[in-house]
């Protein structure tokens, strides 16, 4: 009797289960990108669209991002949704500083990206003046599809990053 082909291989999947060969970076990034926990920084009407994205019709959980955390200590990605006034700006910065690494930031909508239509004494002209932004989403406000697209782009961005030197920059700076 001729033995089946797999029994000739050094590795028998029937006995030992499935194995995937990959790089450590890819494995870590794959885990990180598929369970992004957003910190919803809802400041204006963009927050309504963000809530719609999380609800049943658009359903963020299809992408593993439904766990909105209102504590920054448990969040991975801050979605700055809305107009950042100067009065609120340092509060946003403080919440960002409380988020543990790795962390990312999405500027959702025209106001968070650039001040939007509020060219005025009261409004910070883009949250990137205070914290580093990974993804900008255009729109006033952006539709839920746009937010989903932004989050998927963030996932693609995470895939390409180094899981330590790029995603743990604060720690790297501390050690050096």
């Amino acid at each position, binding site marked *: 009797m001729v033995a089946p082909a797999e029994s000739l291989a050094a590795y028998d999947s029937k006995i030992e289960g499935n194995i995937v060969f990959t790089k450590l970076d890819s494995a870590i990034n794959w885990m990180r990108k598929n369970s992004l926990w957003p910190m919803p920084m809802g400041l204006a009407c963009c927050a309504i669209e963000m809530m719609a994205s999380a609800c049943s019709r658009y359903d963020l959980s299809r992408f593993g991002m439904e766990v909105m955390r209102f504590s920054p200590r448990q969040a991975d990605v801050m979605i700055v949704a809305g107009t950042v006034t100067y009065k609120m700006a340092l509060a946003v910065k403080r919440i960002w500083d409380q988020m543990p690494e790795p962390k990312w930031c999405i500027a959702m909508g025209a106001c968070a990206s650039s001040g939007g239509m509020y*060219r005025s*004494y*009261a409004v910070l002209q883009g949250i990137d003046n205070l914290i580093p932004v990974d993804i900008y989403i255009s729109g006033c406000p952006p539709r839920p599809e746009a937010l989903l697209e932004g989050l998927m782009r963030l996932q693609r961005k995470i895939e390409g990053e180094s899981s330590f030197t790029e995603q743990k920059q604060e720690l790297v700076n501390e050690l050096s």
Partner: protein
Amino acid sequence: MNAAQMVTALKEKFGDAVLSTVEFRGEHTLNVNMASAKAILKYCRDEMNFDYLVDISSLDHMGQEPRFEMVYEIYGYGHLQHLRVKAVIPDGEDAPTVSDIWPTANWHEREVWDMMGIKFSGHPDLRRILMWEGYPYFPLRKDFPLAGKPSEMPDVAFTGTAPLADGPFVTSPGTGDTVTREPRAKRFE
């Protein structure tokens, strides 16, 4: 008694303190003396049943004397009549608070102080309401630029200037109508 009759009654009662009255499309406005404005407003509440202070706002007539003007919008739920009381006030002078007549005036007057820099004598808690304590400007004054001014209070807040070039919100001053003064109305070659 409708609003027109109330205006007549107020004129009879307060005489010279009512400087002029304006009626426009059924809305009645009294221009009164700042010194007697509070007495008139109190009379409106106590005797004429204006139990609802709708709003307090202020105007900046920069270049004119007196510079500022207070506007009180009052309404009565018993008679459903609306009245507007205005009084001019020079720069640097305090207006009397009406927060003891209508408690809601407390926050309205804080907003007027915050945005326009008019102080209210007798106000129980005159702090800024929108901007933070220590912000050095009064942003709704005409001499405050639309773009804002930089300011810094460490650990509290900061402000900067906003880019306005060719934006849709810049109007050039002058006597022309809005079609000619607003850049978005300009034709580009």
